[in-house]
């Protein structure tokens, strides 16, 4: 679930766009470099983008009866690393806004930061760490996919709390409120997404 169009006040919308922009530009440069080096990668990157979109467009079976869906970024992050994912996630989020009326253009910066930057970087870090300490591949994949999804929503909660701090109790209180609401849907969802990604990787390894 991404922050809806127009939900963030203008100052926050601009600020998150500014925060996300360097990551997206860096990602775009990486994409250009990759494609110049190996032209075949162009279409393959398109596959990852389309795959992420398709995963996120499919509602999961009655996890909580909510409209939740996977973020789909875990797998791409493991294959293509976070910088490239920042750009691909931007493309996917624009398509989601225009084709599914999901998320939005003014909240693009905030959503890119949560789904395309924070999620992938934490997931990738955890993946590398898990492999270092000799966690089996599929275990590391589970952790990475779980965190890619969960961190996306932790950051979303933080973004909402910063935009709408409780007048009485402050930012941290607001954050805990948003977290509580998202936790109901997102923790089971993150587990399901992670399991699905594990199945995907295990199938891909066998064929």
């Amino acid at each position, binding site marked *: 679930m991404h922050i809806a169009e127009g939900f963030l006040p203008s100052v926050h919308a601009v600020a998150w766009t500014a925060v996300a922009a360097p990551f997206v530009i860096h990602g775009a440069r990486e994409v250009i470099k990759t494609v110049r080096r190996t032209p075949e990668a*162009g279409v393959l990157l398109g596959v990852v983008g389309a795959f992420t979109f398709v995963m996120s467009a499919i509602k999961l079976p009655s996890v909580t009866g909510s409209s939740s869906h996977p973020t789909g970024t875990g797998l791409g992050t493991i294959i293509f690393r976070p910088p490239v994912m920042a750009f691909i996630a931007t493309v996917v989020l624009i398509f989601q806004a225009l084709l599914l009326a999901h998320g939005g253009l003014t909240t693009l910066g905030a959503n890119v930061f949560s789904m395309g930057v924070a999620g992938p970087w934490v997931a990738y870090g955890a993946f590398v760490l898990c492999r270092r300490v000799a966690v089996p591949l599929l275990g590391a994949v589970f952790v990475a996919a779980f965190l890619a999804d969960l961190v996306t929503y932790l950051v979303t909660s933080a973004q909402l709390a910063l935009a709408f701090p409780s007048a009485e109790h402050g930012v941290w209180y607001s954050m805990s409120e948003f977290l509580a609401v998202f936790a109901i849907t997102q923790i089971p969802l993150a587990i399901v997404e992670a399991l699905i990604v594990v199945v995907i990787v295990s199938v891909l390894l066998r064929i």
Partner: protein
Amino acid sequence: MNPLELAASHNRWTNLPVAEKLLLFGGLLVAALLVPPPVGHLVILAVCCLCALALARVPVRLYLAALLAPVAFLAVGAGPLVLDLVNWRLVVDPAGVDTAWRTVSRAIAATAATITLACTTPVADLLAAGRRAGLPAPLAHLVDTTYRLIGVLIDSARTLRHSHDLRLGHRTSRAAILSLGTQFASVFVLAVRRARAIDDAMSLRAERGQTAVLAAAAPVSAVHVVVICLVLVSVATVGVLT
């Protein structure tokens, strides 16, 4: 087929220049963030509905459904603003109520602007506009292939889900997870195979790495631009003055 794409490629505004539609709805989107609620937002919503339903003739049911798409998020997002948990009891926070309705008002106006753009403008036209505006070729190609593959893969994903359903693949949650995982894996394998084929096929018509295509545009009408600017200025004025 995706209902928004369907509407975008078949309405009376489909063939208007992208630049004009971007100026109008981009302007309204910015206005939605800047004008105070609720009158300015209502005016923006009214202008969008007028454009979509009366002028472009987007199907009403589809347009309303798209406008209502963010409702679930608005409920989840506005809930914590309105309600506070005090001594394990939910109480209404009056300051929060004020923030919440202002936020929802803004979100509705902004959503209307984006949705109306999406319902009247084919994505392919927006991508061509990106190319013309100087998006570097490798990026334009990546964005184009993503869009093209989305069109192809959504169908594959749906067919796979149906074929699992035929053999009762969704009967238990364990089976469903296994089934979804293998479906996505199949989609991924198909997608990679298709991507390689497309890449080969492209090399039959140009050197690998070449991605340029003809990106033609309809000429922008000066009259339209003036009218759009007038609309934007009036919307902003009404919004600020009320």
